């Protein structure tokens, strides 16, 4: 039996952890290495590090920072932001990442996904999908949420699984940073569409929201605001979820 995962997310820009609302209005949330070490000590199941300035500013993932975070933690570590080629992924893995998240680059060049899976194994390849709703449609967004694509979210997620992605990191831009809860219909549709794990992201504001995402089929929950600012600790989150019958680590 696999435990469901609680995954703090470090959005990093300019060497600092930041967190915004709807991908904008960023505010500071601390030093990445200190934050990572604290979440590891509190029992995070994994950590995700997204260099959110990488894609828009055409900057490569901050490998030096990745290396320092990797040295501070003893859990699987996903790195994303600015990874456009197999060589970028290889460099992040050598710096200490265990998995690579791709988003914009996978939309521009879908064949990157099978190339990454062949090079490093599908367990290494996290397909990040940013979604914005408009006119009853769930649209895949790229370039840090600045640019809409013609892709519909669930169709794209199915295709990513077929291309060899090992898991889907599904972020609702509409809910990002709002604390209103995950986009549960989206999580439910995505989880039902693929056999690989779906990680729900965007909107967690209370511990109930984590349970709702599991109920909707998510294998893991990504959260930033709730752990960075709102005083909920990982041990509290685990106790809350365990009491509701979800298989989480003690």
């Amino acid at each position, binding site marked *: 039996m*696999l*435990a469901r*995962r609680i995954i703090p997310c470090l959005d990093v820009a300019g060497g600092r952890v930041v967190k915004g609302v709807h991908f904008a209005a960023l505010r500071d949330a601390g030093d990445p290495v200190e934050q990572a070490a604290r979440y590891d000590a509190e029992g995070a199941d994994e950590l995700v590090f997204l260099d959110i300035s990488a894609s828009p500013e055409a900057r490569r993932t901050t490998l030096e920072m990745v290396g320092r975070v990797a040295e501070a933690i*003893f*859990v*699987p570590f996903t790195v994303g932001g600015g990874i456009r080629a197999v060589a970028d992924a290889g460099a992040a893995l050598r710096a200490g990442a265990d998995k690579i998240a791709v988003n914009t680059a996978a939309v521009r060049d879908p064949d990157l996904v099978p190339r990454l899976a062949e090079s490093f194994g599908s*367990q290494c390849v996290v397909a990040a999908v940013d979604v914005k709703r408009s006119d009853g449609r769930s649209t895949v967004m790229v370039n840090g949420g600045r640019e809409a694509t013609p892709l519909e979210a669930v169709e794209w997620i199915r295709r990513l699984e077929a291309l060899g992605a*090992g898991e889907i990191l599904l972020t609702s831009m509409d809910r990002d940073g709002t604390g209103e809860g995950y986009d549960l219909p989206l999580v439910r549709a995505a989880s039902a569409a693929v*056999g690989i794990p779906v990680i729900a992201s965007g909107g967690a504001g209370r511990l109930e929201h984590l349970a709702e995402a599991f109920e909707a089929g998510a294998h893991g929950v990504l959260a930033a605001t709730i752990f960075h600012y709102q005083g909920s600790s990982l041990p509290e989150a685990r106790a809350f979820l365990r009491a509701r019958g979800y298989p989480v*680590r003690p």
Partner: protein
Amino acid sequence: MIVVVDYGVNNLASVVRALAAGGHPAALTTDPDEVRRADHLVMPGVGNFGQASRTLAATGLGDAVRDVAARGQAVLGICLGLQLFFAASAEAPDARGLGILDGTVVRFDVARPVPHVGWARVEPTAAGRRHPALQPVFRGEPRFFYHVHSYHPAGLPPDDVLATGDYDAVFPTLVGRDNVLGAQFHPEKSQRAGIELLDAFARWRP
């Protein structure tokens, strides 16, 4: 001295760091003579059985690991490192492993995604509960360890199975005989449980 065998696979630094987190300095080496001087030997590994077995043969590291195991020193294999303790694996049918443990390595045959990735509940067997290096880790209870693998040990003598996981099928995930231990999971990525396992291994005097 704890020696970590460097045979060209990944995740070596994280194994050394997780040992250090438990207070145990370890040396990484590619030198068979240094391997032979180990009093505790760790063989990590992420990669392909065929490729790794050829590297072990070509560098002389395989013979050195076999010598340390035969001398009765504590030896720990991790993931592919453990799989290489068997004589053969379905991943590379023509390749020869080290033959330190009896059994073989098979691919998951389940209607679920393979590789098996994640925090899996690990249940000690009766033999595992009695094992001096594992007793302080489990204290009779199951624990979660981080797994990433498509293949797993199979066909072992029953007493060599020390703990099992369950992924639609029960599979051995901690195995060992005498002075040899092997973990199919990654203690170096398993937070406190993993650091405690490496600490218990480092203190073990088989």
